[in-house]
């Protein structure tokens, strides 16, 4: 090997020229290349994956059940709130004839303050809900399903409307108003009276016309028959309550005539 040969060898021995990708494709297609190993998950990985899936599904199921339970309890709570209560004791008013363990106690209480007991509607005893009531229940149910926090706010506001304990006989418990489907504006007026005007004399500051206007706005979409029924209930309630107040406070009956006149108008 002479100098020329060395010159050529030095330059060409380690020379590289990249072939095209088709070369490997041909080699791979020839069968000389081993098949890729099938993807087999090791046992511990299988267990880990199964555990992760179990925990994930379990967590989702747990929260779903919890949510369902919460919705159910909200509906029940809503229905409880709608139940008329004795304004003094806070005990739900029980229909006559419906026997419970509190019968005797309720009877005693009713004897003590018979005038304070509200009889929202004796005709509603165990009767099927009207179409409006069904719609209202459905509306509340939908609302509770979609906006649980709002329902919670409502409940809290109802609690805030609880009558002050110092002059319970002068209070109009909001729970008692609920069956009449008063709107929030009316409820707030009653609350204002209960909360700040404890002498009772300005209970009459609730403008009957305002009440009427609010009631009309509230009941406008309703069937006239239903509206009349609810208005009747309201005036019965309002009359009873104001008369009871008048008796307790020794106010002249004439001062209450505005509301009575209102009742006469309808």
């Amino acid at each position: 090997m002479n100098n020329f040969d060395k010159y050529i060898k030095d330059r060409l021995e380690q020379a590289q020229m990249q072939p095209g990708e088709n070369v490997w494709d041909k080699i791979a297609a020839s069968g000389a290349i081993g098949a890729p190993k099938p993807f087999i998950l090791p046992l511990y990985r299988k267990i880990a994956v199964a555990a992760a899936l179990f925990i994930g599904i379990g967590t989702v199921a747990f929260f779903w059940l919890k949510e369902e339970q919460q919705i159910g309890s909200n509906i029940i709570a809503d229905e409880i709130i709608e139940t008329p209560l004795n304004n003094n004791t806070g005990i739900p008013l029980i229909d006559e004839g419906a026997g419970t363990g509190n019968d005797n106690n309720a009877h005693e209480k009713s004897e003590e303050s018979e005038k304070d007991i509200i009889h929202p509607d004796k005709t509603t005893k165990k009767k099927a809900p009207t179409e409006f009531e069904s719609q209202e229940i459905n509306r509340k149910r939908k609302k509770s399903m979609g906006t649980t926090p709002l329902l919670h706010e409502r409940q809290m506001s109802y609690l805030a409307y609880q009558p002050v304990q110092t002059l319970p006989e002068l209070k109009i418990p909001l729970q008692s108003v609920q069956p009449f489907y008063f709107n929030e504006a009316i409820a707030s007026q009653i609350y204002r009276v209960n909360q700040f005007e404890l002498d009772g004399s300005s209970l009459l500051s609730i403008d009957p016309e305002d009440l009427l206007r609010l009631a009309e706005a509230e009941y406008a979409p309703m069937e006239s028959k239903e509206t009349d029924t609810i208005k009747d209930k309201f005036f019965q309630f309002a009359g009873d309550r104001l008369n009871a107040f008048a008796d307790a406070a020794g106010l002249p009956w004439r001062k209450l005539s505005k509301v009575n006149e209102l009742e006469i108008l309808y």
Partner: protein
Amino acid sequence: LKIFTLHRTSNEETLIQRCKKRDPKAQRALYEHYAGKMMAVCRRYIPTAEEAEEVLSNGFIKVFTSLDKYEFKGSFEGWIRKIMVRECLMHLRSRKAYVEYTDSMENHDRESDTAPDNDLDHSDLISLINDLPDGYRTVFNMYVIEGYKHQEIAVMLNITESTSKTQLLRARNLLQQRIKDMENAINELSNIKS
């Protein structure tokens, strides 16, 4: 990928062992590591790139299928290179390319021992070698670059030793002449530019 695969396998022996077990990833890594060098080998024997790639793929198929015969004696690169050279020779034989072997020395066949002045690129050199007649080119490659002896070349090409020597001498002279021509052309070009 080459660096990555080499780093992963850490040594050639492990890679070869995995290739023996027909691990496709290892086979791909081995191919990636040697494909460039072996393509250059093939291009020195086979003038066209398409044919060279065909020979290269056949050579690698043989490498992978006969890897069990490799017993870690000697360089693995040398083992692959031998397979590639044999594959090139088979290809040339199959197309009956190297038929013109002359074993008679003529007066103008004088040996020259001068290395070129210019530092030519390997692609230029391969191009010049590819322009040699098939017989010259084959013997020149086998003797000068692969390091075979004339006796081995004679056996492999089924020619006499003297024929191998004659082919080498003529190939060397022709290549030197062409390198000189190329150098002159480059010098002229540079003179024109300056």
